[in-house]
């Protein structure tokens, strides 16, 4: 059976055979960096195209359909355009921070890739506090956004950045609680263990209704955290033109744009890992034949399939709902999501202690 | 109120008023000084003219005429109040404390005809550039660059 695990072990064995261990590690690092950067670029292209196609079909349009078959290369052409465009820096902007901000946002996305299990035993860094690492690093992206908003010296940008700050800080909470429910159920912060714990069923099925509630809360919270509609107040096209990246153009804008999609991918990947068993195939009770067939689908396909399903869900939200107002956004968090998630966590703790889950 | 009743009522408020019934509605011509008290009385008195639906100015080459179209949402009677102004120095008191809609309409008349409204809270140009010279809707306005004579 095709497996990415075999490839990685083969590569490592070969490197260790040829070079000394330090050298081998360095080369592995370079390979990982190259792979993650190309994954970034690829994801950006695919997700932007997907967003446009999903939006178009929801809006009874065709979407991009001229560049390449079915408009496949539209985003490639767009990227080329963005690279060639002049990157303007406003006269009175804080040049250093202005240039730094997109890279900070980008870097956060890169760091978050590390603990994600893309397939069986295919993980950059299986850190034992994986969940904690993710929730702490992901809150860093607000710094990049605040930086961009402040350094642009533009009032729209400033307003957008401030909104974004308030939003990300508050929605961290319920996202954290939603993640914690799974940690409580599993008893581990390590992502590989969380995945392994779902061998006999995904948490969303095993954890009864509290897990479903936690999943809904998680999706809402991460939609807000990635500044997606209906929580796209930081950009709020009709109010703040483009929010914190009003003044950005060319490649710097492209980085923000890319980072937004990478962030969506990452939060959806984490959601898939926590609630849908990551690369675990779908197993149902003792249907031996069915489970066997499911096992034949490569684990990476399972992972990507689940992740893209969640991404589709988030896109579906975006193209259906109107935007919230900034006070309603915070009300939603503090009056609804947070109490519900606290109560839900309590419920899950009781379930976990009494062993009521499957 | 019928036109006859109005004709008896108005002179108690504005003695110099003259009437003209040729058009669709009763036209009342008053002097610029009498206008403001008359308007207040029309709005708050027994006529209850609470709806100013058109405020404009007409340039008759010899003089300017302010035209106020009034109506009431209760009894739906419309009257027209007019006041002649001196073309060289057109000054009239504002009515925008009586009808809020007059604020913008008077600003428009101010820049298009040069009528100065005393006591207007914010008499600035609304549509034209701040340094625009001349009053475009007056008949003698000439703009050789932008106006094309057919």
């Amino acid at each position, binding site marked *: 059976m095709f497996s990415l695990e075999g490839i990685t072990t083969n590569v490592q064995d070969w490197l260790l055979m040829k070079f000394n261990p330090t050298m081998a590690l360095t080369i592995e690092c370079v390979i990982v960096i190259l792979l993650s950067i190309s994954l970034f670029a690829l994801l950006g292209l695919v997700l932007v195209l997907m967003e446009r196609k999903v939006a178009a079909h929801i809006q009874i349009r065709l979407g991009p359909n001229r560049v390449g078959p079915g408009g496949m290369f539209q985003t490639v052409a767009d990227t080329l355009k963005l690279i060639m465009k002049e990157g303007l820096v406003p006269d009175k902007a804080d040049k250093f921070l202005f240039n730094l901000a997109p890279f900070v946002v980008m870097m956060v996305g890169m760091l978050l890739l590390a603990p994600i299990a893309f397939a069986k035993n295919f993980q950059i860094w299986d850190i034992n506090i994986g969940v904690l690492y993710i929730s702490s690093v992901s809150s860093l992206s607000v710094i990049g956004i605040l930086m961009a908003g402040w350094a642009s010296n533009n009032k729209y940008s400033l307003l957008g950045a401030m909104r974004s700050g308030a939003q990300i800080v508050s929605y961290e909470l319920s996202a954290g609680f939603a993640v914690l429910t799974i940690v409580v159920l599993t008893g581990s912060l390590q992502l590989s263990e969380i995945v392994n714990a779902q061998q006999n069923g995904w948490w969303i099925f095993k954890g009864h209704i509290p897990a479903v509630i936690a999943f809904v809360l998680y999706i809402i919270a991460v939609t807000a955290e990635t500044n997606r509609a209906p929580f796209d107040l930081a950009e709020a096209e009709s109010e703040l033109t483009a929010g914190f990246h009003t003044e950005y153009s060319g490649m710097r804008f492209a980085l923000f744009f890319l980072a937004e999609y990478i962030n969506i991918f990452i939060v959806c990947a984490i959601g898939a890992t926590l609630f849908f068993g990551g690369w675990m195939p779908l197993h149902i009770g003792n249907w031996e034949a069915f489970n066997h067939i499911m096992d034949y689908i490569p684990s990476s396909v399972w992972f990507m399939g689940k992740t893209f399903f969640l991404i589709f869900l988030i896109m579906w939200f975006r193209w*259906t709902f109107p935007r919230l107002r900034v006070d309603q956004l915070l009300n939603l968090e503090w009056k609804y999501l947070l109490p519900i998630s606290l109560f839900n966590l309590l419920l899950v703790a009781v379930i976990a202690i009494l062993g009521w889950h499957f | 109120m019928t036109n006859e009743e109005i004709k008896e009522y108005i002179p108690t408020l504005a003695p110099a008023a003259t009437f003209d019934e040729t058009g669709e509605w009763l036209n009342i011509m008053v002097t610029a000084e009498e206008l403001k008290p008359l308007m207040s009385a029309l709005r708050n008195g027994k006529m209850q003219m609470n709806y100013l639906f058109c405020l404009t100015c007409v340039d008759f080459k010899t003089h300017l005429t302010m035209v106020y179209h009034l109506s009431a949402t209760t009894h739906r009677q419309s009257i027209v109040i007019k006041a002649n102004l001196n073309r060289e120095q057109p000054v009239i008191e504002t009515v925008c404390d009586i009808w809020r809609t007059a604020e913008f309409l008077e600003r428009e008349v101010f820049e298009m005809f040069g009528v100065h409204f005393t006591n207007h809270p914010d008499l600035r140009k609304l549509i034209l550039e701040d340094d625009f010279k001349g009053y475009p809707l007056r008949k003698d306005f000439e703009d050789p660059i932008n106006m094309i004579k057919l």
Partner: protein
Amino acid sequence: MFLKEYITDVVTGVTSLLKGMRKTGYYFTHPKEIITEQYPDNRATLLLSDRFKGEVVMPHDANNEHTCTGCTACELACPNGTIKVVTKFETSPEGKKKKAIDTLVYRLELCTMCNLCIVACPSDAIKMAPNFEHSVFDRTKLTKVLNQPGSKIREGIE
């Protein structure tokens, strides 16, 4: 009771959102509903109404004859000065002088397609054509002469 209100709030809110998602989901899964018209590709099948006011044209028949008498009614009717009729005097074989058009200059860039000239024309010499692809690189190309070179007025039109 507070709790009950709270829960009904959440439930009604979520159902209203789900209803919206069902609608958009329906359109996502029904590509037949797509209404996009792929314009330059569908040029062959693109049907414009025959009344569509695209530009003023002067129909000529097979003998290169039109029905314009040069009465300048269209020129007078036009609010924008779009049409300019240049007349000349033709001498008929019997030696009678007759007014006829030399050129009928039509400036598309000034035209607002108000149709007043067509209504004004007493001899139906001009009409609106459903052409809409008017863009050119040079504005002077929009000034057109409507009567074809060498054309003359049809017999019997006064």
